[in-house]
């Protein structure tokens, strides 16, 4: 209440300052008059009476000033005055204002943009209730080292046992992903579908926007033709119609009834939210019930589903892990297949799964952009120092006239706050542009990156950064410039004085900037070198091969019909004019799809669980992909349709692993002891399937149609002499001629896949390179600014030196020495930082050591060149100084 009153009074007194002043002077006038009257009564003359009263009263001005300050409005009032004064003085030097605001805006904008990204990815909570309570359940087998722990989910039977036995979870759900053909008009469309059980939406604590979620009854086989739409699909297919419930959509040729629509922004599971999701599904557009027959429910060895659970109240991940481990130990002996011997359980929180891999990148980007902001602050501080030096006269006069130091500091800080605020406003605009640019670079592996916006939190961040920045760059100049010795100032006749101390301050600023740039450039250098290494990787395939995905025709419901389908497909495509070679493969490289088999090699000390990558490939595959056959031969066309596989092709790593690099042709292998042997007929170059940056593992190729049953979908690989569009049209026509209901998916050139695979690295490399170039640019401006200023300040000295016989080369050397001394000190300090920084970057690098000599040599070279460039103009200016003019200048 007191506070409120006091505030009201302050405000009142500020608004009615004139009233307050009048009443004060009236009050004092009364006092003064009374004193005069008293003196008159004592018999003084009117003049004496007034003089005596004035003596007794003291300074009326001082009294009113003190009274004014004691009213508590002085601060606010001064601030208004400072702001008005600041705006006026900044307007007087538009060049300075423009450059300072722009420099800072660049830093603030970049920081805000990156913060928005981090906000979208890491800080905003996932829209799944309390997302921190969600956990994935995996059933890893430590005996199979080829598979990461997150690659294996529980089988159907395991899942139902876990659901029955576990008490750690309040809710648990199973789901699977599937690409399906959605037919709405004439052209079928490939959509990402999640098959989910009745607990799915309840576990995620998400309710449909319209209609209902799935019930147990929806999962009954024969009763499972219901579908829930995502908001995006509801908009695109039904134009957001309110009466969408009860209407039907056609999926893979079957009719599904719409029972619900999910709210905007819900698309779980997204690719970035699953450890090993379906590579061709980015987000989920449709949900259908997971319907299982009794036989499927009992399957223990063949299936691997996604299991997501919500921890029961009070249960920690550790508790759940302990319980799941005992359950896994109970389930393990129930498995028949050797693949499961030694099976364990892993409980991993969803947020750790989703955010764990991106956290280091986000931290890296934040710190890099923070460095850029610091460098920008350095420039602004340096500019302010230079300006303060040229304002020395003004500040000196104000100090002489009685302005207190605190008042001058406040004035200077107000100006930097004004600059900071202006930069903040421009910076937010820049941030908006930067975010758009960032989204264009979206590499697809950063969860929820597409939702990055300038939201309230980002704006608050921008405001705080602007204020912090203003203080950061304003405080040093404010304290340094207001350190005025009035006597010395007056002795120098109010003109110029020594400013050496401020130049040394600016030198330290520039040195810090150079050091920061060294750190950033080293990071960017290491990233660039890694990126170049990745670009020059031998992928094992041609980047110009065209590929399309073809799903299995719904009509091909038997093994024989499947074989017929593929034979017809291959034949139709091969006979299209212009097609030079066409092949089929079960899984393309770099598509996050994987297939492993256990093998026994004749004449090799075989171990349990020897896993190799396996692909079903037709004879045209290696030709179309231009994968060199190094030894032996390719499959022949008649082997494509052979009923039983008797021939296989292996890759180089296979030969190196199992035959110690010796010729594998004619050696034999089989997938289990009760299978007949297959003979190795060819040796091909390694293909990087899993990722570009992971060395190939042993690979075995089996003739495409010999596997049993044939794959339920394949990729067609094609080389043709036609233009790309014509080839694609020909492929589409071929598929349609076999089954008009089939939707061709994933039409890509292999370079699309490599480009997609390198996107994350390109993203981080681009950002770090942009940040460090900006930092370098700002630092160069800083060096240039300091040297140009120094040449101006030393004009007299330079003139004197020239008059005393110094040559122009000598003068140039003088300026160069100043620039290079900054460089060397900055480099030394920066190198220490760079070594530390490089060590933390180790996990980001590919085949480049953290202490990469090339980078550590190139960075100083680049900096030295840049510094020399910054020295050119100032030294030229110094060298062309006319000694006469220069001496008069002093």
């Amino acid at each position, binding site marked *: 209440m007191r506070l409120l009153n006091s505030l009201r*009074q302050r405000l009142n007194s500020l608004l009615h300052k004139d009233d307050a002043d009048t009443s004060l002077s009236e009050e004092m006038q*009364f006092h003064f*008059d009374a004193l005069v*009257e008293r003196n008159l009564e004592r018999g003084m003359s009117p003049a004496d009476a007034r003089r005596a009263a004035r003596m007794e009263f*003291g300074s009326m001005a001082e009294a*009113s000033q*003190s009274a004014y300050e004691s*009213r508590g409005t002085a601060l606010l009032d001064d601030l208004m005055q400072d702001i008005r004064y600041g705006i006026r003085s900044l307007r007087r030097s538009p060049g300075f204002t423009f450059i300072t605001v722009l420099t800072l805006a660049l830093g603030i904008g970049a920081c805000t943009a990156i913060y928005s990204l981090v906000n979208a990815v890491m800080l905003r909570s996932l829209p799944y209730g309390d997302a921190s309570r969600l956990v994935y359940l995996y059933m890893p087998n430590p005996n199979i080292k080829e598979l990461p722990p997150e690659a294996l989910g529980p089988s159907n039977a395991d899942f139902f046992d876990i659901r029955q036995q576990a008490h750690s979870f309040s809710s648990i759900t199973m789901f699977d992903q599937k690409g399906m053909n959605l037919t709405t008009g004439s052209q079928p469309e490939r959509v990402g579908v999640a098959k989910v059980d009745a607990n799915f939406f309840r576990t995620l604590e998400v309710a449909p926007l319209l209609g209902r979620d799935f019930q147990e009854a929806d999962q009954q086989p024969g009763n499972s033709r219901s579908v829930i739409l995502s908001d995006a699909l509801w908009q695109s297919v039904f134009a957001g119609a309110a009466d969408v419930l009860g209407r039907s959509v056609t999926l893979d040729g079957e009719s599904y009834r719409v029972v619900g629509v999910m709210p905007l922004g819900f698309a779980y599971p997204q690719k970035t939210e699953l450890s090993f999701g379906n590579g061709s599904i980015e987000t989920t557009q449709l949900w259908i019930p997971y319907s299982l027959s009794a036989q499927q429910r009992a399957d223990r060895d063949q299936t691997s589903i996604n299991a997501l659970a919500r921890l029961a109240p009070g249960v920690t991940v550790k508790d759940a892990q302990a319980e799941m481990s005992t359950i896994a130990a109970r389930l393990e002996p129930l498995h028949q297949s050797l693949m499961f011997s030694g099976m364990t359980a892993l409980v991993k929180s969803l947020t750790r799964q989703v955010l764990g891999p991106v956290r280091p990148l986000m931290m890296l980007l934040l710190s890099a952009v923070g460095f850029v902001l610091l460098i920008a602050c350095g420039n602004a501080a340096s500019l302010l120092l230079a300006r303060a030096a040229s304002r020395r006269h003004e500040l000196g006069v104000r100090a002489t006239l009685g302005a207190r130091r605190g008042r001058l500091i406040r004035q200077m800080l107000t100006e930097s706050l004004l600059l900071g605020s202006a930069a903040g406003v421009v910076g937010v605009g820049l941030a908006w542009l930067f975010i758009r640019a960032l989204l264009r670079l979206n590499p697809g592996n950063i969860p929820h990156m597409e939702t990055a916006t300038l939201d309230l939190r980002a704006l608050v961040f921008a405001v705080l950064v602007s204020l912090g920045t203003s203080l950061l760059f304003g405080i040093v100049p404010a304290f340094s410039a207001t350190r005025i010795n009035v006597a010395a100032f007056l002795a120098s006749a109010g003109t110029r004085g020594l400013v050496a101390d401020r130049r040394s301050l600016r030198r330290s600023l520039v040195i810090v900037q150079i050091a920061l740039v060294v750190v950033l450039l080293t990071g960017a250098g290491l990233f660039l070198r890694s990126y170049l290494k990745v670009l020059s990787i031998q992928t094992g395939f041609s980047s110009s091969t065209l590929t399309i995905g073809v799903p299995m025709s719904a009509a091909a419901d038997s093994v024989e019909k499947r074989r017929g389908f593929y034979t017809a497909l291959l034949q139709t495509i091969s006979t299209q004019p212009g097609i030079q070679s066409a092949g089929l493969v079960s899984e393309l490289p770099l598509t996050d799809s994987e297939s492993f088999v256990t093998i026994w090699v004749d004449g090799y000390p075989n171990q349990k669980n020897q896993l190799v990558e396996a692909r079903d490939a037709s004879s045209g595959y290696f030709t179309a992909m231009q994968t060199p056959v190094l030894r032996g031969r390719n499959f022949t066309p008649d082997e494509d349709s052979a009923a039983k596989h008797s021939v296989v092709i292996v890759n180089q790593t296979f030969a190196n692993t199992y035959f110690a690099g010796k010729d594998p042709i004619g050696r034999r292998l089989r997938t289990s002891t009760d299978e007949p042997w297959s003979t190795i007929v060819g040796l091909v170059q390694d293909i990087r399937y899993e990722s570009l940056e992971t060395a190939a593992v042993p690979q075995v190729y089996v003739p495409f149609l010999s596997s049993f049953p044939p794959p339920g979908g394949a990729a067609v690989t094609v080389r043709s002499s036609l233009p790309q569009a014509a080839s694609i049209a020909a492929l589409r026509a071929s598929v349609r001629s076999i089954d008009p209901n089939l939707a061709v998916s994933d039409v890509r050139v292999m370079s699309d896949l490599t480009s997609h695979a390198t996107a994350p690295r390109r993203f981080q490399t681009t950002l770090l390179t942009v940040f460090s170039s900006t930092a370098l640019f700002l630092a160069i401006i800083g060096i240039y600014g300091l040297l140009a200023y120094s040449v101006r300040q030393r004009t007299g000295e330079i003139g004197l030196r020239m008059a005393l016989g110094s040559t122009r080369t000598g003068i140039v050397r003088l300026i160069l020495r100043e620039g290079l001394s900054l460089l060397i000190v900055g480099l030394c300090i920066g190198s220490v930082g760079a070594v530390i920084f490089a060590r933390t970057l180790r996990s980001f690098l590919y085949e480049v050591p953290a202490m990469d000599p090339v980078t550590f040599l190139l960075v100083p070279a680049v900096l030295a060149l840049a510094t020399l460039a910054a020295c050119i103009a100032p030294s030229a200016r110094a060298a062309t100084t006319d000694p006469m003019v220069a001496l008069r200048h002093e």
Partner: protein
Amino acid sequence: MTRSNELLQGTLDLLILKVLTLQPMHGLAIADRVRQLSDDVLRVNQSALYPALHRLEHQAWIKAEWGESDNNRRAKFYALTKAGRARLKTEEESWERLSGAVQGVLRSV
């Protein structure tokens, strides 16, 4: 400007509050009363008096009202508030403590 009898920081507030316990007064009367009660030893400088009055008013220890002076002129009269009375009590106590302490030091050395 002589400042020989400069008041110790904070004592002016105490004196003003004390003097105002008698009756509401204007600035000149306060200054006169302090001088009179201190046998002409303490002279309140006006450039200290008015800021002090405004500060005390601002803290709601005294309140001001315009009124008529003895010679029928407009003058601002200050009166003690309830909060001011409480304040005076604590100020007096701390002054007693302080002066007692100073006395103690002076006597002992």
